[in-house]
Each structure stands twice: as structure tokens, then as C-alpha cells.
């Protein structure tokens, strides 16, 4: 269990340092079952920070979202550190960002937050309905206790956990400068049963499934933008020269976009599930990423975001790589 007073204390210390530019964490949202990402710049704001099962977002996403502004002549660029609070899953993003040289290790201060699982907004809405008040959630044993519009409700943990948490293998951060609470026991395991299940479908069935899903896509690119691994200065998807995908929305272009996205994340996806969470039209985006994650593991016994020293999957090879289908 994370003690928020300790969390805030540590954050305050970090924010007080003059070599720190900003601290990214979570704060109470204005309504509903999710917290809001907090980007703090001043020690006085530290008390806004929270950590509870509403803190689903991946703060690592916001490290790479920050724009590098032109530096006026005669001034020095702001090279102060960025501090970030990370759950176990979030920390894998930091690891992979380091592998891909998004920044250097000493450019960030990582405060690790051992996590026992967060609540899936959609599941909670189904169970308890909507509300325009911020909801408080506490974990109590195998239950989550909610305070919704002033009244207390309960729901079984297992049914309310976000999918990524159900199979979580990394509740404790893999990279950090400091932990704000004691490490917790690992409860999850990942057999990729969902992928196997999906693969029972025939190609035409799969295509039909995705055709329906992708036809919903409005190409708002929230799945891309929220992804902690997606931070190219110019994304091939929106590039005009050459035009890989067209901006126009139809099943073909939408499908192409989602394939491209999944492809660029294969061997890089760290399974934080943000892409699917943010989708306004409920496309099961992680179904694609999960498939790649599984195959990458099976074919190349490779797992991204766990080893800072690792070589990027597609920038290395093994002479014995599988090639069963190659003629």
C-alpha cells in the first residue's frame, strides 16, 4: 500500500531541486473513475499528487510528449532533469525509452511506485454506472471499495482490474532511483490465452472482425500519441512525402494505419495498454500488440522493456532465427 504522504514528501524534495524541470505523476480527476496525469513544476504542487487504483495512466508517455522549444540566441537549452513516478508496467516504458536513447539515464529521476493493480474505467462504469463526480477507490483485500457521489460501493477486485493488471508480471518498477513504498508480491502470469483464443478464427473471420473494428476508427491518433514508444518527430503515418497512409478514413486506410502502428511497436511494445484505454471508439487495439509480444517472445525469446542493455529486436539477428516458411 502506497502512503501518499510519503509519496508527496519525496516528490516535494525532488521538485525542490534546482536541477529538476518537472515531475510527472497522477492527481485527482475532475470526474469519474480515472485520475488525471499531473505535470508539476513547483514543490508547492506536490500535495496534488495521489496514488490509488484510479492511477491508470502511464506517466512515461509524457516524458517524450514534451516539445523541445527553440532556444533564443544567447540562451542555454533547459537541460534540467525530468522526474517521473512509475508503476511497474510504466517503468518498462522508461527502460525501453532508454534502450532507444530517447534520453540518458541521468536525464531522468525515476520514483518507483510498487502497484497492486488499477481499475478499468469501462468495467467500473458497467458495474456502477456513470458519475460526474470524481470517484475514490481503495483496494481492500480481494475487493475494491468505491466512493461514488458520496455513497460507498464495493466490487470484486478480479472483475474490476484492468486487463494488463490481471496478467501483470511486473508490479514493481524495473528501473528507479527510489521506491516510494515497499515492493509487492507478484500475482499475475501471462499465458497469452487471449491470443490463442483469437487465433482459433480463420483468416476471413479475423478480417471480418477487424473490418468492423477498424471501420469505427476516426483516426484521432490518440492511441499513437499516448504510446510512450511513439515519439518520432515525423510519423510515417502522417508523412506527406511519401504518403504511406492516407489521412482519409476508410477501412483500407484505417487497417493500414493500425497495421503500421502495430508493426512499429513489435519488439517495442511494453504492454501498458494505454492505446486501448484512450480509444474513443473502443477498438481492441492491444489485441494486435499482444499477438506481436507473444510471437516475439516465442520466435526470438525477446521481451522489450525489461533490460536497459538489450539490443533493439529488429536491429539484431541470430543466424539460427526461425525460417520455416521460407522457400
Amino acid at each position, binding site marked *: 500500500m502506497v502512503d501518499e504522504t510519503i509519496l508527496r514528501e519525496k516528490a516535494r524534495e525532488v521538485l525542490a531541486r534546482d536541477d529538476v524541470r518537472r515531475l510527472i505523476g497522477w492527481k485527482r480527476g475532475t470526474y469519474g473513475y480515472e485520475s488525471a496525469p499531473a505535470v508539476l513544476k513547483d514543490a508547492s504542487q506536490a500535495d496534488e499528487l495521489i496514488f490509488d487504483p484510479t492511477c491508470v495512466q502511464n506517466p512515461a508517455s509524457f516524458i517524450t510528449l514534451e516539445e523541445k522549444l527553440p532556444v533564443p540566441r544567447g540562451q542555454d537549452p533547459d537541460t534540467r532533469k525530468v522526474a517521473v513516478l512509475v508503476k511497474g508496467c510504466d517503468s518498462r516504458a522508461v527502460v525501453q525509452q532508454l534502450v532507444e536513447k530517447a534520453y540518458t539515464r541521468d536525464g531522468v529521476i525515476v520514483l518507483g511506485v510498487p502497484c497492486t493493480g488499477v481499475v478499468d474505467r469501462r468495467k467500473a462504469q458497467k458495474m456502477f454506472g456513470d458519475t460526474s463526480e470524481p470517484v475514490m477507490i481503495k483496494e481492500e483485500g480481494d475487493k475494491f471499495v468505491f466512493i461514488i457521489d458520496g455513497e460507498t460501493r464495493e466490487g470484486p477486485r478480479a472483475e474490476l482490474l484492468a486487463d494488463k493488471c490481471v496478467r501483470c508480471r511486473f508490479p514493481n518498477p524495473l528501473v528507479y532511483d527510489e521506491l516510494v513504498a515497499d515492493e509487492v508480491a507478484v500475482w499475475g502470469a501471462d499465458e497469452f490465452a487471449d491470443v490463442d483464443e*483469437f*487465433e482459433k478464427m480463420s*483468416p*476471413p*473471420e*479475423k*478480417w*471480418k*472482425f*477487424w*473490418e468492423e473494428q477498424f471501420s469505427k476508427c476516426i483516426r484521432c491518433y490518440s492511441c499513437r500519441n499516448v504510446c510512450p514508444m511513439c515519439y518520432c518527430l515525423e510519423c*510515417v503515418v502522417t508523412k506527406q512525402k511519401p504518403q*504511406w497512409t*492516407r489521412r482519409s478514413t*476508410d*477501412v*483500407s*486506410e484505417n*487497417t*493500414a494505419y*493500425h*497495421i*503500421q502502428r*502495430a*508493426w512499429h511497436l*513489435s*519488439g517495442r511494445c511494453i504492454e501498458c495498454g494505454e492505446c486501448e484505454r484512450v480509444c474513443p471508439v473502443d477498438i481492441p487495439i492491444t*489485441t*494486435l500488440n499482444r*499477438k*506481436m509480444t507473444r*510471437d*516475439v517472445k516465442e*520466435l*526470438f525469446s525477446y521481451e522489450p522493456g525489461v533490460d536497459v542493455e538489450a539490443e533493439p*529486436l*529488429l*536491429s539484431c*539477428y541470430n*543466424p539460427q*532465427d*526461425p*525460417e520455416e*516458411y*521460407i*522457400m
Partner: protein
Amino acid sequence: MSEEYEPNILAFLCNWCSYAGADLAGTSRTHYLPNIKIIRVMCSGRVNPLFLVNALQQGADGVLISGCHPGDCHYLEGNFYARRRFMLMRKLLEHVGVDPGRVNMSWVSASEGAKFKEVIDETVAKAKEAGPMDQFRRRQLNW
């Protein structure tokens, strides 16, 4: 329609082995199906897996990537990278519902004109089996 339908295959051949192998098939007058259209690249490692997606979108019913045998790459390692990339891209496309028979890869050396023909035959056969890939074609028609 599948009976009459002639699949359209796009092949990406590396300049040093497979493209030369295709040339050899020519110089030795090995007849094969005209369904195949060849795009020459310097190395199979050059082929961006997203080319496949684009090819299918443009209306290709199958694709072939062919390079030097492992260890023989004119650029030492290109085909090793290609092997990894396409193994994965194939799996991804399969997951989206693209028949894996549409995504083919082969090692054809400059001296394997005969093998090149076999590869083409098999690729075309698989694409025939998978049927026309219309559902992914860019919607030029109903623009």
C-alpha cells in the same frame, strides 16, 4: 470468380542473388507465370515490411521477398534482418486476417534460375488458393 482469377504478385528481389537468379531463369529460357511483377532492390534488407502492406492495399494478391541464402548476403547481414522482419510481419498480417499464403519469402541465389521458377509457381499457387485480396484494396474505385 476464383476460378478465372489470376493473382497479381509483387516480388521484391535483391540485386545480387535473387534478381540475378531471375535473370538466369531468363537466359536459360525457363518459362514461368506472368503474374509476377518484380521490383529490384539492392538487398532484401532494404525491403521495408510496410511495402507489403502497401502492396496489398494497392491490389496485390500476394507478395514475395527473395534474397541471398543466409550467409551469402552481398552486404553480409541484410538477409538476416529481412528474415526476422518478415517472419514477424507475416504473423501480424495473419492476425489481421491476411492469409499467410500471401506473404512469401525465399532464398534464391544467382545460380538458382530453376529454383526461382519453382518459387514463383508456389507463390502463385498459394495466392490462387487464398483468393483475390479485394477487401484491402484502396478504395480508388468508389472515390
